[in-house]
């Protein structure tokens, strides 16, 4: 197929041809084309369907403000919905399809909704679909959902990778048009660290779309030379294809760089990079967006923004039509007429809403000063337009200009409000800009070239002076200021047909009037009721018109009517880029224990606990169910000896003259009296009296303690203790270091634990029961001189020790321990067996320490010292925490021993109904006890300590279970603790 709309000129590389397809039809374009410019070149004017009425649509714009020309790009897992054809760079083999239609683009069955549009006015759905009640989810909503939405996702994981990075600069220049280039050149030449970013793949902004000259050469050539100069500076980073999408606190900006979107494949490179830019100053040079004028059927393919039509002609060498008409309220529209005419395009008419003399001579064109377009003809592409005065004019493209709106979005990201400028009928940046930001060029309402160049330069100079640097930017580039008169004109009131404001969401002038009639008059009500400005373009071309119309309805001025708030991102950002590499297995880092490699060799099954991977159990050949492995591990440990990696428990090294007193204050029980060489269990409360964490603390020296915390709370406890140390008791001489990762620690438990350890502990350290009794600790050496710490503590209820060595010896130690234990048939046990044994012993763990339980609930109320100050003791005395029927942690066993208990079941008295009023507590932890041969549980029940032997029901409604359980002591094995002390 030939490129029938390709004309002369432009900045595309005609020496190379690129093949691409749209809806399966094959076309050709050139490097430098966007998908939209290439489609227009090939005469493919219709590119999509609107959201609500499925109206045929073509490209309205030539940039990221595009509401209509949305396509699905690429195929399979690379399928990318809602891509703007106007910014998608053409590449060889590009495949795109149109979206949001049933049937083909040309024959969309859903177009029927357009016929019923009178019943589908703004907010109609709030007034109906209410009967019958059950029909919403079953009938109405599914229909609405399938009709709504735009593109489709592939439902396959995104195969591309995305990177993130951090950049720092003195000056961030947002936008690479005339003002931005002028600012970047000035700052770059002065030696400042500069980042200049532009969303386009070609630096230059409107300079590439115009025929204006700078410094005596064409604007596009000047921009290209400026880009070369900037790229050559070490202190400047020039970033094309990079959208600065958000302005955040303290000079931080978000930017998205599209690295490989313009290539056939990403080829292993990241598709996009999300940059966080830390700037000392920023200058916003984001240009302006042209606004349309509302008139009858102004949404049809072929009706485009005048600046876009000019851009297609000047930059891409494409005329969207053979007979182009212009409808404008300003001088800029005339430049479209002259530029196209100069390139040989037939201009059929120029209609200017302003009276007076024509602003240019356009050969062959009907000139209608004071004229207005009332309607268009042609369903899938216009072929003529109708003027208010009754004239009909042939045109297959109507270029509309209603004036320009500065792209002030980023100035409002920190809720700054814009200011109205009557002379150019638009909002410009207000006073309350994000700190460090200034605005230059068209984004500041400075629409003419020479002024924009000067303003960019000046903004750079000011920023550098602010930073104490000397501006040495040299001369401002020279150019002329073009004519830029504009007279506000928003909509053609004579139009009978629907006139579109928000083209994507199908919001028309009538909808605004209806919203006004129904009292949705504040700008936010208007937006929310009509959906205006909520489409993928966020109303970049629509909001201003709607505002003007609402002002007209209410009789207020536009600034009185207000604006909606600009929110990040400036243009939509892929979720994949925002997540970066933090997805899949890399969502969060893994923490591995020192025995991990060894455990892998043993075929361990691992479980995630927080960031850690821990061995859950170690299946042996022949074991088919996890319970077999766990029961074996428990039995072998209780029968002889077992070893478990407990490195993940938090470890905090506490030193200083006041270390003991410090511990006295953070724990509820006393530590000042703890002897050197001894370990004590400690319970820590939050200031509100709830149990925060528990663990053991060993006194290695007069002024040296080592605390252990639970795995989950290692970080929070350390943070809390630093708070106590620095903020509450700064006079104390105490210092804390987290040593969780510094020491590998293993529990060695079981009747043969000592015998095993004696084989690895160096002989000058006696660990006999006499020399190293229960709750003893000491610094020792193992395996011939390796530093180690030994603690005689037990979580399992057996004779047990925990032995720690510097983490780098952890792998060696587990191997040494297992080898030494061979003669005792030692087992390695995982977290499951650990859990079984702690429930059998009645120790509270994470399921009990929920942050909602007091020391009393846990059966440790008496530990809370009333004789000393400690965190939590005052507020733990509040009445509601000290009632007669407080919950108490106790044990449970099934009356029928063959039944399994369920964690999360609630306790209800026998004969009472299962409702919340009868709820007496819940089962927190359950396990099958290999020792007892039946299921056992721990749980909280009202006044539990006084109800031993009572039978209640454990009701598990979500599993349809309701079984009788007996309240028993939580200490299922060795309640006197004899085994610990042998």
């Amino acid at each position, binding site marked *: 197929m030939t490129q029938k709309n390709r004309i002369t000129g432009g900045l595309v590389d005609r020496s190379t041809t690129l093949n691409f397809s749209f809806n399966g039809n094959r076309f050709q374009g050139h490097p430098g084309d966007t998908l939209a410019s290439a489609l227009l070149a090939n005469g493919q004017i219709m590119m999509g369907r609107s959201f609500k009425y499925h109206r045929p649509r073509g490209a309205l714009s030539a940039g990221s403000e595009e509401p209509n020309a949305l396509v699905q790009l690429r195929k399979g897992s690379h399928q990318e919905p809602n891509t703007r054809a106007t910014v998608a760079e053409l590449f060889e083999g590009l495949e795109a399809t149109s979206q949001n239609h049933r049937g083909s683009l040309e024959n969309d069955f859903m177009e029927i909704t357009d016929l019923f549009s009178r*019943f589908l006015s703004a907010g*109609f759905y*709030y007034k109906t679909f209410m009967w019958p009640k059950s029909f919403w*989810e079953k009938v109405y909503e599914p229909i609405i959902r399938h009709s709504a939405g735009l593109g489709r996702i592939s439902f396959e994981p995104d195969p591309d990778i995305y990177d993130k990075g951090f950049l720092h600069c003195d000056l961030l220049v947002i936008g690479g048009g005339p003002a931005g280039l002028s600012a970047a050149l000035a700052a770059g030449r002065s030696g400042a660290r500069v980042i200049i970013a532009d969303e386009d793949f070609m630096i230059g902004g409107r300079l590439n779309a115009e025929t204006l000259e700078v410094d005596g050469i064409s604007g596009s050539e000047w921009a290209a030379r400026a880009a070369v100069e900037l790229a050559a500076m070490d202190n400047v980073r020039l970033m094309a294809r990079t959208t600065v999408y958000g302005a955040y606190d303290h000079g931080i900006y978000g930017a998205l760089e599209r690295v490989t979107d313009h290539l056939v494949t990403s080829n292993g490179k990241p598709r996009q990079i999300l940059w966080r830019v830390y700037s000392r100053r920023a200058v916003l040079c984001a240009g302006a967006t042209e606004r349309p004028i509302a008139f009858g059927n102004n949404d049809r393919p072929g009706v485009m923004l005048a600046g876009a039509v000019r851009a297609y002609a000047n930059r891409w060498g494409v005329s969207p039509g053979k007979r182009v008409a212009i409808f404008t309220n300003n001088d800029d529209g005339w430049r479209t007429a002259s530029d196209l005419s100069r390139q040989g395009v037939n201009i059929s008419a120029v209609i200017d809403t302003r009276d007076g003399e024509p602003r240019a001579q356009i050969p062959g064109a009907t000139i209608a000063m004071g004229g207005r377009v009332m309607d268009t003809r042609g369903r899938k592409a216009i072929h003529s337009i109708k003027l208010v005065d009754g004239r009909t004019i042939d045109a297959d493209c109507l270029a509309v200009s209603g004036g320009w709106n500065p792209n002030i979005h980023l100035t409002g990201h920190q809720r700054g409000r814009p200011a109205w400028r009557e002379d150019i009928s638009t909002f410009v940046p207000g006073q309350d800009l994000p700190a460090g930001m200034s605005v230059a060029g068209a984004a500041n309402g400075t629409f003419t070239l020479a002024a924009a160049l000067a303003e960019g330069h000046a903004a750079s100079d000011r920023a550098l002076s602010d930073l104490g640097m000397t501006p040495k930017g040299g001369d401002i580039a020279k150019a002329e200021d073009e004519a830029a008169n504009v007279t506000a004109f928003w909509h053609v009131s004579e139009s009978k047909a629907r006139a579109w404001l928000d083209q994507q969401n199908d919001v028309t002038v009538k909808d605004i009037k209806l919203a006004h009639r129904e009292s949705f008059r504040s700008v936010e009500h208007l937006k929310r009721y009509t959906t205006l400005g909520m489409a993928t373009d966020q109303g970049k071309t629509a909001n201003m018109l709607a505002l003007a119309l609402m002002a007209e309805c209410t009789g207020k001025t536009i600034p009185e009517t207000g604006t909606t708030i600009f929110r990040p*991102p400036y243009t939509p950002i892929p*979720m994949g880029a925002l997540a970066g590499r933090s997805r899949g*297995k890399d969502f969060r880092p893994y923490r591995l224990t020192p025995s991990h490699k060894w455990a892998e060799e043993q075929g361990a099954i691992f479980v995630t606990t927080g960031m850690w991977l821990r061995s859950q159990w170690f299946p042996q050949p022949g074991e088919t169910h996890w319970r077999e492995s766990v029961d074996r591990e428990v039995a072998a440990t209780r029968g002889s000896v077992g070893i478990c990696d407990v490195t993940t428990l938090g470890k905090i090294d506490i030193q200083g003259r006041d270390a003991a007193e410090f511990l006295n204050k953070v724990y509820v029980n006393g530590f000042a009296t703890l002897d050197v060489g001894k370990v004590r269990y400690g319970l820590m409360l939050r200031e509100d009296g709830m149990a925060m964490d528990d663990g053991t603390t060993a006194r290695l020296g007069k002024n040296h303690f080592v605390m252990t915390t639970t795995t989950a709370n290692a970080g929070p406890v350390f943070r809390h203790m630093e708070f106590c140390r620095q903020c509450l008791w700064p006079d104390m001489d105490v210092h804390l270091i987290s040593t969780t990762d510094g020491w590998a620690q293993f529990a060695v438990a079981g009747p043969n634990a000592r015998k095993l350890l004696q084989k690895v502990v160096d002989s000058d350290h006696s660990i006999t029961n006499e020399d190293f009794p229960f709750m003893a600790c000491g610094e020792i050496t193992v395996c011939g001189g390796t530093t180690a710490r030994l603690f005689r503590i037990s979580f399992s209820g057996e004779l047990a020790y925990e032995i720690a060595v510097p983490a780098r010896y952890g792998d060696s130690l587990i191997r040494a321990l297992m080898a030494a234990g061979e003669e005792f048939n030692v087992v390695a046990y995982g977290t499951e067996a650990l859990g079984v044994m702690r429930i059998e012993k009645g120790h509270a763990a*994470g*399921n009990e320490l929920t942050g909602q339980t007091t020391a009393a609930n846990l059966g440790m109320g008496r530990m809370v010292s009333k004789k000393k100050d400690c965190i939590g003791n005052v507020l733990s005395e509040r009445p509601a925490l000290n009632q007669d029927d407080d919950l108490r942690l106790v044990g449970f066993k099934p009356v029928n021993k063959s039944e399994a208990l369920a964690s999360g079941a609630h306790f209800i008295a026998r004969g009472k109904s299962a409702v919340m009023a009868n709820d007496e507590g819940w089962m927190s932890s359950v396990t099958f006890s290999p020792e007892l041969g039946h299921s056992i549980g721990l749980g909280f029940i009202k006044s539990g300590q006084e109800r031993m032997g009572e039978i209640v029901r454990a009701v598990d409604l979500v599993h349809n279970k309701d079984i009788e359980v007996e309240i028993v002591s939580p200490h299922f094995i060795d309640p006197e603790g004899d085994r610990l002390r042998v």
Partner: protein
Amino acid sequence: MGYSGWKVIWQGLTGNTGWKPAWREPDPKPSYDVIIVGAGGHGLAAAYYLAKEFGITNVAVIEKGWLGSGNIGRNTTIIRSNYLLPGNEPFYEFSMKLWEGLEQDFNYNAMVSQRGILNLCHSDPQRDAFNRRGNSMRLAGADAVLLDADGVREMCPFLDFDNARFPIKGGILQPRGGTVRHDAVAWGYARGADSQGVDIIQNCEVTGFVMESGVCMGVETNRGTIRAKKVGVAVAGSSGRVMAKAGMRLPIESHVLQAFVTEGLKPVLPGVITFGAGHFYVSQSDKGGLVFGGDIDGYNTYAQRGNLPVVEDVCEGGMAIMPMIGRTRLLRSWGGIMDMSMDGSPFIDKTHIDGLYFNGGWCYGGFKATPASGFCFAHLLAKDEPHPTATKYRLDRFRRGAMIDEKGVGAQPNLH
């Protein structure tokens, strides 16, 4: 005027020119029986139920901005009654029941869509906790279904089951949970209240309270003094600022919660899904956008905007469970100010000042509570005693030690 499908057709045939204003724009009267400060969801609902259920129609709702401009207009639209604690669950289940009859009640289609809410779990302790919570819900008469990994896969085959850092072990499903078109809730209540004679006064900011002999007798506003027998404040997000005008310090901090929506997509999600190993929740709007959110930013603020670390953290959570949305684009992010309370639960209570009542502290769960909160606040204002489902939401509960701390994180608002 009543709304119905017939009316839509009739109006369509007659040019849609006969629609009446959804509410009046009255000037404030000198005095009312009850003034409610804050025309957000809770305030409007309270006014609606005061008129409808308790026969008190001489009511003004005053609002500093436009009605519905607070968190009712900027939330992620989720409704659910899947709470653990007895202080909460009956209240939220009451709210759910009100949602279920709301549209017919106030004759406005707020698109109450009970397509289910699924909380994923990723560890055994988490599953235990879900079991306990599911049973609490059932004990309170709500619905709850525990799913294993296969059950989750059947419902949401697109989740990441094979390459996840935190594998999905199951989930808890509340089939009656879902979403509601949030703005329409405000509009429906406003229209319903207005039609019963309630004055909704927009652009009217409270500058102080009228105090006489220690009793609150009305409010001072930028449109003059308005007197009332009772004043109820329902301005979540601004509670600290407004109640400070009555000299009160509250167990509340103000924090920003960001929310997000993507470009529109053809149907993707069956209902609401929440990630259990990071903070991420998502649903799909009727228009097709994925509406999602995560953690609050975590620092005190009254600026309705957030920062990048949380934006990225939330999107990481999304990609962790749904790697298929990588090429879907985030369209808009925004921020709302939350009343983060000291135990994560709200207040509906009289204050120590006679005539002054307070409703707030909703953290980031206020939307789902809107009908019940309004109902219970109306009950309190009308009868001077708490509604049976809201007896625990007292301001003095910290003094007594009767916290309602679902998360068990204590008196640190940014962790709730």
